[in-house]
């Protein structure tokens, strides 16, 4: 019995560590790459895609500028279609296919804005610098 308990404990630790490692790694090369674009009237626009998670996951944007977060859905039926931004108290169930504009005021465009899906499975970050 003693031996089987040791084997089972070892096996469990390995599996759980494996699962944690899988969940915590970043998806292939999605580092802080995307930089927001600016329209002629001075509003900056951030484009992200929601389907089985958000991409890009990290966006760098200018701080203190009125911003529009434009989320496109393409046959998105998973959790990422219900977007939540806790800091803004914002939640919206986006249509399965289409684009949704989320306005972020200049005052809110500070620091790091964390967005995620309603169940918390997928997340993304906007870093205002």
């Amino acid at each position, binding site marked *: *019995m003693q031996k*089987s*308990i040791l084997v*089972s*404990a070892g*096996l*469990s630790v390995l*599996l*759980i560590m*494996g*699962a944690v490692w*899988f*969940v*915590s790694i970043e998806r292939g090369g999605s580092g802080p790459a995307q930089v927001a674009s600016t329209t002629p009237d001075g509003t900056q626009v951030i484009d992200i895609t929601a*389907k*089985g*998670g958000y991409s890009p*996951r990290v966006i760098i944007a200018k701080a203190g500028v009125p911003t529009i977060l434009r989320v496109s859905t*393409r*046959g*998105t*039926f*998973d*959790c*990422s*279609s*219900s977007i*939540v931004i*806790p*800091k803004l*108290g*914002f*939640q919206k*169930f986006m*249509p*399965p*296919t289409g684009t949704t504009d989320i306005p972020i005021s200049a005052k809110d465009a500070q620091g790091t804005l*964390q967005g*995620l*899906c*309603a*169940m*918390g*499975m*997928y*997340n993304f970050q906007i870093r205002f610098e």
Partner: protein
Amino acid sequence: MTTHTFHVRGMHCKACTVLICDTFTELPHVEGAEVSLATHEVRVTGDFEGSPSEIAAQLSKLIEGHGYSLSLEREAHEANWGDFAYAVPIAAALIFGFVLLQKAGLTSLIGSGTVTYGTAFLIGVIASVSSCLAIVGGLVLSLSANSAKEGGTWRTQALFHAGRLGGFFLLGGVVGMVGNSLHLGLTANIALGILVGLVMLVLGVNLLDVFPAMRRFQVSLPAFFSRGVNAGAKKDHYLAPALVGIGTFFLPCGFTQSMQLYALSTGSFTQGALTMLVFALGTLPVLALLSFGSLNIAQRSWNGIFFKTAGLIVVALAVLNIGNSLVTAGVIAPFINF
């Protein structure tokens, strides 16, 4: 006139106490009956003949059909810690498999074209093995394994699924016709997520069967809910699982919510109802496997390992759900990304 106290096996909700109580008081020679869910005991007063064990056997026969039995002695409690040697690695392997499945990118199977009933079915199938499995599947597993453990029958499980399918059909139709979503707000969603997480936590710890004291916190529908105005207690007993099935329509599951949004856009009762029904049918194979599987395994000799494995998985999913709800509330930073 004598009073006897017996131990009841197989009781799991308030409706059970009502059903047992009514069955006994209907007997001409029984004066009164009192059933306690907390202690799993029944006190009957009346003109009985024979020894206490004969009376127990007689009364037991009347309620056997509903999955209960009476005994003189309280059943001895054994934690069976040895089962964990198998349950822990099996549970860890299944959780690992679940994580791998999330990473497999199943959502890319869904095209961006128009939603046909075929697509709705496919989305249902994908939903049943993805993030929704954490909440809906976890709830089904914990409820059915608990029900199987307490001697529940296939009827309870079948009623749950019938309620779920019927509820999705009707509510889908209502959403389509009214053109208004039945979505809950952000705060309500977070509260519901935490509540479901806590229910799963209690049910999961119950399945582990290591703290007998936890039985007192058993999740049960309040008595006023189970005791309908006109309907008899026997019917109510079957109503509870069906109501829980209908209730799954409101569970915070991303797929269900976006399907509701689609049903809403159809603008017709028939289309909305059929879309939601087909979606629910897509989720049925996995959910039915969970509930009827646990019922089947509950009768095997190694059921102890199964209940402990299920308990560990349910507890893990409960912690995941509560954690995710706190993330959504902005209380803690995101700790996972599937």
